[in-house]
């Protein structure tokens, strides 16, 4: 019996290639006769195209516009409202209109295309936009009764901004015309999303479209739906030119044109008894979808389901709306709506505690969800509900209560006698408690019906899934699950490239589902294979019986039910639970906020690969602190004005505090080895923890990012002793 690999930090499958530089990313690849493509984009936020003029000699160029599209001019996803190339109407800046291609990149970049427009009046305010892509209502109990039971009602409005995914490798693809169809290689999360979009766009059957993921330098959701667009563009050019076409964005184009996290405005009205018990939660959430629907409907769905935070309450009303604005479409980003709504919930929770005069730990202890409790959608939580466990562990580990009181006292004394110009800043400590559903929302996994295959090899098995390795460790973690289930050493399990010509559709690599959902299907494949093998070694089996490939499909746990019409039921298979504590220091001269310590306790069922899980949690925490304090997309006239790394500020190592990560394991019965999801949850908590720390230091912020400019204003506008209104 080989030693177990699950729970051990084995060598990454693709690690050697990455650290030695042998890994080949899309821009490293080339094909004979390859030409380069460039996208001509709109420069106005709303209007009509009047005419297009070419200020250069077009011979030697391939020119593509919407009339070259053989199938439907849409990026097929949910609503089919987004054209692949604009025809007449323009709904946002940087909307693709034309494609140019040439063998010489210099000639391509020098080509001057002039487009005249008739401009229309753009809409930028999501809260007043008349067009809604999706509305969702969640009702539990009777909200009026909940407010009648309340002693105190606390209200608040919270705002979150755009956030750029900022994967290191920008979006890029190569399209190669072959066999009467097209093959697209590229940096992506979801090969089968691209496959489907290309079939619709090009009017080609399944077998004429092949999509191959190349080594991918990060995604964070930014390569969930967008690659369908860029792949469509490259494929259109390749088919017209009948040559391989490379289309790789530079950083500016990537930031200007591709999706970002939805900005949100969230209002809370909460009824609470004097002892701290929540009696009514009333939430109104608006997210800014940008110009087209893309994934806004499902981002909203995850957002509203998580909007209460991990708390129990009998009377809940949640209203959510994703609306249209004339800005580039927003889309998938790690957390997918939950970071926005849980930011609001957790900052609001500290304000409730403040209104009642109780501390932030106590209010959460009183209301945290426990096993057997029901969520806003009525889902009854199982024994793996760990809200209290993560809260208590974090509080103990950080000496939270003592520090919180000490800083609050300091704040009060500072108010009495301002002693500026002394060394040292104002310190604060803040806490956030949060949860994250793993897998697709509601009936999503049933609809996806994901498949995974396992092929027997001489020495073990080969994994065939469409799940992509984008830096998070998919190949490694899947191989560990298969190795231990099959009873072979980890090194004897290979992982096939995510190539739609070779692997089944295991669904997209999103929604914290790759381990819990796809990993579980693979585990079932391995269980079946183990049984088939009996006492034979793989080599003996192959010799005696010939090739063996086992394919299994997602099976809904029998205890799970969801009704999409009423939005009632089990929204997710299960949830991960986590608690963050951020300690910050505010510079008294510059209002700069420096995180000085960060602690997070994550309950994730089972850490298949502890180092990779730790990496996910540390990375998500750092990204969450960037979201909280630094990262601001400056939109001017519908255009991102700071689309460069000089001015879109993400944290460097020097801006990131030491991060203390604790992993707790409370197994989920339907997860492989008990594992739940881990990819997204870490980014839900840092923003509210940091903002609550600012509150502890004397700054009342309701909006992120908490740039020094906003911190300065919060100090001025909100007198520190007028909070009990």
């Amino acid at each position: 019996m080989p030693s177990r690999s699950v729970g051990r930090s084995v060598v990454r499958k693709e690690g050697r290639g990455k650290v030695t530089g042998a890994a080949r990313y899309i821009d490293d690849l080339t094909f004979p006769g390859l030409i380069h493509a460039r996208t001509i984009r709109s420069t106005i936020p709303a209007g009509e195209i009047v005419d297009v003029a070419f200020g250069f000699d077009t011979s030697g160029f391939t020119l593509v516009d919407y009339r070259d599209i053989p199938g439907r001019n849409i990026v097929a996803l949910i609503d089919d409202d987004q054209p692949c190339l604009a025809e007449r109407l323009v709904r946002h800046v940087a909307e693709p209109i034309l494609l140019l291609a040439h063998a010489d990149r210099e000639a391509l970049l020098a080509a001057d295309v002039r487009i005249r427009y008739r401009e229309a009046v753009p809409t930028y305010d999501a809260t007043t936009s008349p067009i809604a892509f999706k509305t969702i209502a969640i009702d539990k109990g009777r909200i009026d009764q909940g407010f009648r039971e309340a002693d105190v009602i606390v209200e608040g409005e919270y705002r979150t901004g755009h956030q750029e995914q900022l994967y290191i490798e920008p979006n890029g693809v190569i399209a190669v015309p072959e066999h009467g169809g097209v093959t697209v290689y590229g940096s992506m999360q979801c090969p089968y999303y691209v496959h489907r979009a290309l079939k619709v766009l090009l009017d080609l059957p399944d077998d004429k479209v092949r999509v191959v993921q190349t080594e991918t330098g990060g995604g964070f959701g930014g390569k969930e739906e967008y690659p369908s667009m860029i792949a469509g563009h490259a494929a259109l050019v390749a088919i017209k030119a009948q040559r391989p076409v490379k289309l790789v964005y530079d950083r500016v184009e990537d930031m200007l044109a591709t999706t970002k996290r939805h900005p949100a405005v969230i209002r809370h009205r909460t009824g609470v008894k004097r002892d701290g018990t929540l009696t009514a939660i009333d939430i109104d959430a608006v997210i800014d979808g940008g110009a087209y629907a893309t994934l806004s409907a499902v981002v909203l769905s995850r957002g509203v389901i998580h909007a209460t935070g991990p708390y129990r309450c009998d009377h809940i009303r949640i209203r959510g709306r994703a609306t249209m604005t004339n800005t580039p479409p927003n889309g998938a980003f790690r957390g997918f709506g939950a970071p926005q709504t849980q930011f609001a919930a957790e900052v609001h929770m500290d304000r409730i505690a403040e209104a009642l005069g109780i501390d932030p730990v106590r209010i959460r202890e009183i209301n945290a969800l426990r096993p057997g409790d029901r969520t806003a959608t009525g889902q009854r939580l199982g024994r793996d509900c760990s809200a209290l466990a993560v809260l208590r562990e974090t509080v103990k580990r950080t000496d939270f209560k003592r520090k919180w009181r000490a800083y609050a006292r300091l704040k009060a004394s500072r108010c009495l006698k301002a002693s500026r110009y002394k060394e040292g800043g104002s310190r604060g400590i803040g806490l956030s408690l949060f949860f994250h559903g793993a897998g697709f929302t509601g009936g999503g996994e049933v609809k996806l019906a994901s498949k995974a295959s396992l092929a027997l090899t001489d020495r073990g098995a080969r994994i065939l899934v469409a799940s992509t390795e984008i830096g998070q460790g998919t190949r490694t973690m899947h191989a560990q699950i298969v190795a231990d289930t099959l009873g072979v050493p980890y090194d004897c399990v290979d992982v096939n490239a995510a190539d739609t010509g070779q692997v089944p559709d295991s669904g997209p690599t999103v929604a914290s589902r790759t381990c819990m959902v796809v990993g579980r299907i693979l585990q079932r494949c391995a269980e079946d294979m183990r049984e088939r093998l009996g006492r034979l070694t793989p080599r003996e089996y192959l010799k005696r019986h010939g090739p063996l490939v086992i394919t299994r499909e997602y099976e809904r746990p029998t205890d799970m039910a969801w009704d999409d019409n009423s939005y009632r039921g089990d929204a997710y298979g299960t949830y991960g639970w986590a608690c963050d504590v951020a300690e910050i220091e505010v510079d008294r001269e510059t209002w700069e906020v420096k995180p000085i310590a960060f602690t997070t306790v994550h309950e994730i069922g089972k850490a298949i690969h502890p180092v990779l899980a730790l990496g996910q949690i540390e990375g998500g925490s750092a990204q969450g602190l960037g979201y909280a304090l630094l990262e601001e997309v400056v939109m001017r006239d519908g255009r991102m004005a700071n689309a460069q790394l000089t001015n879109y500020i993400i944290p460097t190592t020097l801006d990131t505090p030491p991060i203390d990560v604790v992993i707790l394991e409370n197994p989920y019965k339907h997860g492989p080895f008990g594992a739940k999801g881990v990819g997204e949850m870490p980014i839900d908590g840092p923003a509210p923890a940091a903002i609550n720390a600012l509150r502890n230091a004397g700054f009342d912020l309701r909006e992120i990012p908490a740039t020094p400019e906003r911190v300065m204003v919060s100090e001025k506008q909100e007198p520190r002793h007028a909070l009990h209104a």
Partner: protein
Amino acid sequence: MLRDEPTLTPLAGCTDLYVALNFGTLKDTRFLDLWRLDRLRKIELRGGALSIGALATFTDLIRSTLVRKRLPMLAAAARDVGGVQIQNRGTIGGNVANASPAGDTLPVLAAADAVVVLQQAGGIRRVPFDGFYTGYRQTVRRPGELIVGIEIPPVRGRQFFRKVGTRAAQAISKIVMAGILGPATGSGRTARIALGSVAPTVVRVPRTEAALASGASIEAVQRTLMEEIAPIDDLRSTAEYRRRVAANLLARFVCGASRG
């Protein structure tokens, strides 16, 4: 070469130029590489003044005991430039030539009454730092002239430097301030204060300096400074923030500990 083709753009560390080139905002297409002119890298004392070759890198400045002893605020400014890689390539001459209002070392040179040494085939001329910039990214450097060095006369008094960037490293300043404060006497004290990122060029603030010299209260001096500078709202910050932070930094400088 510059005499024959005065429109050649001189380049050294390329830490600004290459960004602009890659970004497609640079019109220049022909360059003159100065990087290997080691003669222009010297940091030495010459006739009582600190003489710094234009090609001295920020790392050279940080490591120089002469700089650390005579002009610690320049070493502090050099440490705040970009990151280590940028500090190894970027030069003080390049920082001066690039003429960004946000240049990290420029307020130090302005406050220290530095002199820019310009050379062309015909000879050398010296321009006081105060008169070197004529507008946003405009200098008195003529085509055919090279910045070969910076001369800094002896500085007496307490030095101060503070850069407020957008993050701890790899940041462009929102405001940057350098100052020299002479010893207090009965009738006030001499002060030289310069700021970056609050105007189209790095600026000295003579009215504020005069207020400090007259012995006015710190609140009055702060008010003068806030009136004297005219920062703008831009991608990186707001005018109000820059004004208030400038006033705070000044008070910290005058009332608090030295951070040079």
